[in-house]
């Protein structure tokens, strides 16, 4: 579904990520883990076409990303970002409705099918009860679920999520990942997610990619990756501290 090959990217002339390769298939959850500033967000930005790559390839559905139009890409890939938004006087439902943008006509009027998609996305993320609340007035955690609902409502084949659970408490984190799991398995969406909660990443991921200093240092199944040795090396955690906090 999504495959990244020998990718180089960065800001201005500086290269932040180099020679990155990985792929994620339909129905799979791939998590990107690694220390802050390793390049996880950068690679997501390139995939979502926010940032131009310097070299390499990003294939979406076997098509090189560059030859997909912006409008087409919007139907194939949706993202959630770490940046906070404050849309004035927009209800949660209206925020979710923007997810139908790629499908509606010139004036953005929603037809029955669009409305159903909105309703369903809100149901799946347990945000229906927030529908008429103003987006700016709900809690951070609720906002993240609304943004996920918006992303789902876009009916993408690929979901790219940048640290989507950072503001959620543990109960909502679990609920969030259950939703993601269901989406991946039932709708066959390919999910690529950057996260810091390695305990949770171990449980929900089908594949894990370790990123450090802009390079893929390791990748594999959760069983292969989540060994004390590899985690200590990836995050530069001394052994005694690892033991203190993880064992």
């Amino acid at each position, binding site marked *: 579904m999504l495959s990244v090959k020998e990718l180089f990217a960065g800001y201005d002339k500086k290269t932040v990520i180099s020679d990155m390769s990985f792929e994620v298939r339909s129905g799979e959850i791939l998590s990107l883990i690694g220390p802050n500033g390793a390049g996880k967000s950068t690679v997501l930005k390139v995939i979502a076409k926010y940032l131009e790559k310097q070299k390499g390839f990003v294939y979406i559905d076997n098509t090189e990303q560059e030859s997909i139009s*912006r409008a087409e890409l919007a139907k194939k890939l949706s993202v959630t970002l770490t940046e906070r938004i404050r849309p004035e006087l*927009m209800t949660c439902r209206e*925020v979710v409705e*923007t997810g139908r943008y790629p499908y509606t006509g010139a004036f953005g009027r929603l037809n029955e099918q669009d409305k159903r998609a909105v309703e369903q996305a809100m149901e799946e993320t347990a945000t229906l009860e927030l529908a008429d609340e103003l987006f700016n007035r709900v809690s951070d955690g609720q906002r993240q679920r609304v943004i996920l609902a918006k992303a789902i409502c876009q009916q993408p084949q690929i979901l790219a999520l940048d640290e989507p659970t950072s503001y959620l408490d543990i109960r909502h984190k679990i609920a969030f990942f259950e939703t993601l799991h269901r989406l991946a398995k039932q709708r066959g969406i390919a999910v690529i997610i950057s996260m810091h909660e390695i305990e949770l990443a171990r449980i929900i991921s089908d594949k894990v990619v370790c990123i450090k200093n802009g390079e893929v240092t390791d990748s594999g199944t959760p069983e292969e990756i989540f060994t004390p040795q590899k985690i200590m090396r990836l995050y530069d955690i001394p052994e005694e501290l690892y033991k203190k906090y993880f064992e």
Partner: protein
Amino acid sequence: MTNKKQKNYSLIFILLIVCTLLVFAANIFIGSVSLTPAQTLSAIFSEHAQYSQIIRKIRLPRAAAAMILGGALSLSGYLLQTFFHNPIAGPFVLGVSSGAKLTVSFALIAASALALSINSALLVTAAFVGAMLSLGFVLLISHKTENISMIVVCGIMIGYICSAVTDFLVTFADDSDIADLHDWSQGTFSGMSAEDVLSAAGITFIAVIGTVLISKPMNAFMLGESYAKNLGVNIKLLKAAIVVLSGLFSACVTAFAGPISFVGIAVPHISRRLFGTSKPIVMIPACFLCGSIFCMICDMTARTILSPTELSISTVTSVFGAPIVIMVMLKRRKEGGA
């Protein structure tokens, strides 16, 4: 959008339209010469009626100008607020009106010095160039800082510079030119001919159509640039369209009526509160109608309150508009907005 909401919107729109018509009628009836409805109607329909000069040459064009340009000004502000994701933006505080004022003064003085006649198309073009120059500076600054307060302060400074240069130019103009320039540079709907009103209506109509056409991407743009991009919005094109349309609205207003303060900033806010939404497809007609009503009431106040002396329109719009702006800022602080 639920049905209940849609019904509410329709109701408010009907009220606004009725209000617009009533205020428009009041603008024609009320003035230094008070007329009965019968006298007014006969003056409208017959050239030879007693007061037909007053009605046809003065009050009708003036009321129409306030209605059209009030709507245009408020949409100009709405577009800038959408662009900057901030309700404190507006054509006057960002120096756009003053930029237009500068180039229009320059055009007027140059034309009089060269003994050329100047038509309204030329004036609007000059105003548009000025509006775009000021907005260009503001945009340059907005690349350097995300802080809207900084951007607004710079906009106000640009406004002052443009006004200073305008004063400088006026000092060198002929006395006969200055009389006209002076009134116009304070902002006024008076002295508008029927042709002027028609030109203003034409330009405004085109710009309103353009604004309606970008209402869908503007809605997505409310989620911020990144999300809008992911939804498939062509950000560069959208931003360019917003800037050009906003400049066109301001230019049209400034060319015909001079710089008018606080309408562009305050009216979109009133409209948002009135409808409880900021959906562009609702806000575009809402801002226009509220702007029309606001400007017609202000203009009526300006010419009647100290009659026969007339106040400049900005004097009145400031008195009504500035407190609203202060309220918006305090309220946003309370709600935790930036």
